[in-house]
Structures are given as structure tokens and as C-alpha cells.
């Protein structure tokens, strides 16, 4: 883990006045840019969420909590939140467990391990929108290979219409998502596992401890910091899930796979409900801020 500021940093303590301001000069440009793109939009979002801007109207008068109230009654909004949580709740553990299993597979000496790892990481660096497009080709019920492969196992043609059938559309999106990000978990967990003190695990095994017991008592505490970071990064990414769903279903059939990001895009850029979208965005910020604070406090992995 990254530790706090170096203990002896104060040794560089400034002497002259110009020196004293140096540290502020150094952060100034970065802070300016972050304020422009990070803070300003959030404040601006808050402001327009109290107005009534739409495609046709530039109504900037104060409308109070009108949009927040409407949001509260908007079933589509709550459903999109629910869909988002489903994606997080399924994909996150799946990626973690698969990644862990793969990490164990590659943990011990294996000829050509470097090459395997290098190949396995490719999904992670693929553009998510490209990953989505690729899976759309794979899932095509006529020209894609997935139904064909399933057909070999089933012994008869498999006519699943992946991206239309409500029973299969979630699995389809989840498969694409898990395919892309399991290697991420794998890579981090492999690195963490490699750093676990071997003598301890071996001693435990000699004592006759089961694999699970060894894992829980020795391995898990050792890899926990890395795992927590990995889970946090992925949870945040999944919460903003957009690209893969956009490429695969655009939120369909109906709105059944619409995530909060997709609904916000549709409301903001296709329906031009500017103020309404702003209210939605602000609610998302609040949800996110609250849950991150809670999670960080629990995990105590701040910094």
C-alpha cells in the first residue's frame, strides 16, 4: 500500500519566500483543471437541477425541488438503479471468485507463465465499447458462434436470442462484463498471493489445516489490502456501467437492462430534459458519496 507522506519530507522545508510558495505553484495548474472539470460541473448540476431547462425551453427560473420530487416518483429511475445494483451484485463477486481461482492456477511455477499472464490481460485494456461490440457479434443468434457451441453440447440447434430474451439478456451482459474484468482481479490477486509468506501457509498445511482454513486465517489477511482496493475500483466502475450495455442492448429489451448511466444519457441527450437529468445526476453523486464514505470507513483503507 501507498503510505502517508515521507517522514523526512520536512527536511526539505523551505527557506526563502519564493521557496515557500513553490509547493503551491506546483499544485496550482492541476487544481485549476480539476476544479474546472470536476468541481464546477457538480455545482452547475446542482444549480440547473432547480431550474426547468428542456429541449425547447431555456427556463432558468427557480423551481425548487420539482425535479427531485418527480424523480422520486419516476419508476424508470428506480428501476435503472436496481439494474445497476444487480450488475454490481452479480459481476463483482463473480469476477472476484473467478479471478482468485485463476490466480491460484497460475500461482505456482508454470512454464510460460509470463506469456499466459500477458495474454490474459488483453481483455482489460480493450476499449469497453469494443468489448461490447465484440460480444454482440458473438451472441448473434444466427451468425455468432455461441449458439453454435452450445448446440454441440446440447446435441441440437440452440435458438437462444440472447439480446432480446429477458431470461438471457442479463447473462449476456454479465458474461461480457465478467470476461473483460476478471483478468483485472486475477492480475491483482496473483500479485498479492505471490507476496504471501510461503512458510506460513506451508506450516499450516503441515499442521493439517484445511485449504479453506489456511486461506481464511493466513492468506486472506495478507491479500486483504489489495483485494479491497480491487473490489473498490471495480465496484465504482460497475456502478457507472455504460459502454458494454450500450453496445449490447442500449438498455433493452424495453428498459429492462437500463443502468443509471444509460438512463441519464437518454434523459439528458435524447430527451433533452436538462434540469431533470441534472437532478438525477446529483442524486447519483449523493448516493455515491454516502456509500463510498461508509465503505471506506468500514474497510479503513483510506489512503
Amino acid at each position, binding site marked *: 500500500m501507498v503510505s502517508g507522506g515521507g517522514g523526512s519530507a520536512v527536511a526539505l522545508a523551505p527557506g526563502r519566500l519564493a521557496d515557500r510558495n513553490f509547493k503551491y505553484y506546483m*499544485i496550482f495548474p492541476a487544481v485549476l483543471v480539476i476544479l474546472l472539470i470536476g468541481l464546477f460541473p457538480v455545482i452547475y448540476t446542482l444549480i440547473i437541477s432547480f431550474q426547468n431547462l428542456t429541449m425547447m425551453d431555456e427556463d432558468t427560473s427557480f423551481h425548487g425541488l420539482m425535479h427531485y420530487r418527480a424523480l422520486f416518483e419516476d419508476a424508470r429511475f428506480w428501476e435503472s438503479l436496481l439494474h445497476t445494483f444487480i450488475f454490481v451484485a452479480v459481476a463483482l463477486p463473480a469476477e472476484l471468485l473467478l479471478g482468485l481461482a485463476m490466480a491460484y492456477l497460475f500461482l505456482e511455477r508454470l512454464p510460460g507463465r509470463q506469456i499466459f499472464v500477458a495474454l490474459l490481460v488483453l481483455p482489460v485494456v480493450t476499449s469497453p465499447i469494443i468489448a461490447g461490440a465484440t460480444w454482440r457479434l458473438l451472441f448473434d443468434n444466427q451468425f455468432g458462434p455461441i449458439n453454435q457451441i452450445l448446440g454441440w453440447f446440447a446435441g441440437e440447434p440452440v435458438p437462444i436470442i440472447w439480446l432480446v430474451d429477458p431470461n438471457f439478456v442479463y447473462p449476456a451482459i454479465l458474461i461480457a462484463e465478467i470476461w473483460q474484468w476478471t483478468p483485472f482481479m486475477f492480475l491483482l490477486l496473483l500479485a498479492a498471493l505471490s507476496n504471501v509468506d510461503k512458510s506460513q501457509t506451508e506450516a499450516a498445511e503441515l499442521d493439517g489445516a484445511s485449504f479453506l482454513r489456511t486461506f481464511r486465517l493466513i492468506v486472506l489477511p495478507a491479500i486483504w489490502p489489495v483485494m479491497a482496493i480491487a473490489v473498490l475500483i471495480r465496484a465504482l466502475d460497475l456502478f457507472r456501467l455504460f459502454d458494454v450495455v450500450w453496445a449490447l442492448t442500449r438498455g433493452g429489451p424495453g428498459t429492462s437492462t437500463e443502468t443509471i448511466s444509460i438512463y441519464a444519457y437518454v434523459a439528458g441527450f435524447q430527451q433533452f430534459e436538462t434540469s431533470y437529468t*441534472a437532478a438525477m445526476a446529483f442524486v447519483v453523486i449523493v448516493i455515491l458519496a454516502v456509500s463510498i464514505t461508509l465503505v471506506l470507513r468500514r474497510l479503513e483503507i483510506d489512503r
Partner: protein
Amino acid sequence: MRADKGTGLALRYVAAVAVTIVFLFPIYWLASISFKTPDEIFASPPAWWPEQIQFANYAVLFKDGDVVTIWNSLVIASVSTVCAMLLGTMCAYSIARFRTGGNLFSDWIISNRMIPPIVIVFPVFLLYVRLGWVDTYIGLIVLYTAFNLPYVIWMMRGYIQDIPLELEESALVDGCTRWQVFWKVVLPMARGGLFATAVFTFVFAWNEFIFALVLTRSEVTTFPVQVTHYFGGQSNFWAKIAAMSMLGTVPIFIAVALLQRFLVRGISLGAVKG
């Protein structure tokens, strides 16, 4: 015992190969479509490999000028990476060495990476309308710079903290200004970290979709947006989707292959010092 070990290794090897095949298959499929003829693409049951490698699907992208989107991506990703690295490393140095702003400041910096793009894309769009930055290089460059800054600051802070202080102190004693110390001592020492961080910054900007979707029109369309243009209309133009995707993905694969050493630390936000 030994035989056991041998079998175990063989089994693990088979499993490793199987897993790798599963994870690479989609990429293989994408690549194979990019070389297929229309008949092969629309064959049912699907053809698993092209009869012969032909480049017509790529050629049409060059002929119609669609490859310019790769160039756009390259310009935007490169320049924004350089900007983010410069500003971010300066800021990281200040935080690492002077604890500027305290913990609160670093927390605030990294919290900016957690804002979902969708939340700020609309106000940014309206802001850019005012500034005249929609569909310009500068618009996306500033945006990606800002979005990458928290990451760069966070990563570079870690790398700079790994550098021993003595060199900087002796440089100061030798009469270097602070800036010279930063530029001539710290940056060279942090070379490896700079390089690794820059690649991930680049990859983010290269792959980004939603901002590019909203903030480009025609002049600076990036390649992920271009790929989505081939969906819909009368058909999904699979040949073009596949060929354009390959053009945009292969360079990243190569970059990452060259970078194995830094990979883990880079994608774990520095949590693992590989």
C-alpha cells in the same frame, strides 16, 4: 510423490491453456471477422476462420477516410497524456515532499476519480458550448487531462515517495532552484513510474467512449465512437466494426505487452508495488 507433481503440473497446464483460450476467443473472433468476406461473415452456421486473409475490410476504412478517427484518438490521447503527466507529477511532487494541503487535499484529489462520467458530461457539454470547445481537440484534451489527473497524482506520489531524499537535498545545497531539483533530479529518478503511469493514462483516453460520444461531431471523432456508427442503419456493418476495432485495439495490445513489468502497479492504483 514426484509423479503426482508431474500430473498436477500437466493438469494445471491444461487448465491454464483452456482458460487462456476462453479469454482470447472473443478477440480471435473479432480479428477473424475483420478478415472475412461478406459471405463468411453472414454464414450460418458461422465460419470459424476466413478461407484466406484479405484486407478489403480495412481497405474500405482507408478509402472512405474513416481511419482519421484513429489519428484523432492518437492526438487526443497523446497530448492529454503529456499534459496530465506534467501537471500531475508537479502536483504529486508537492504533495509527496511538502504534504501540501494535508490528507484532506489528497483525499479530495482521488475522490475526483470516482465521479461517474455521466454525472458531469452534461454540465461539461453546456460549458463547452459556451467556450466553443465542442468537437475540438482542445475540448477532449482538457477533459481527459482533468479526468486522468487524480490518477497521475496518486500514482506519481507513490513513485516519488520511493525516491530517496538525499539526492534532492544535495542538489539544493549545490544551489539548484526548487524547479531545477524537480526537473533535473526528481523526474529522471521517477522515469520508470512516469513511463508506466503515462501508458495507463494513455489507455484510458484512448478507450474512452461516453465523453467522446457527446463532445465530438465530425472533426475529432475518436475511434470508439466511430465503431458505434457502424451499428444500426440498415444493418450492423460487421466487417467495418471488426476492422476498425482491430485498428484501435492492436496498438494498445502492443503497448501493454511492452509494459508487463509495470502492469500490476498501474492498474491497481498503486496498491500493489509489482
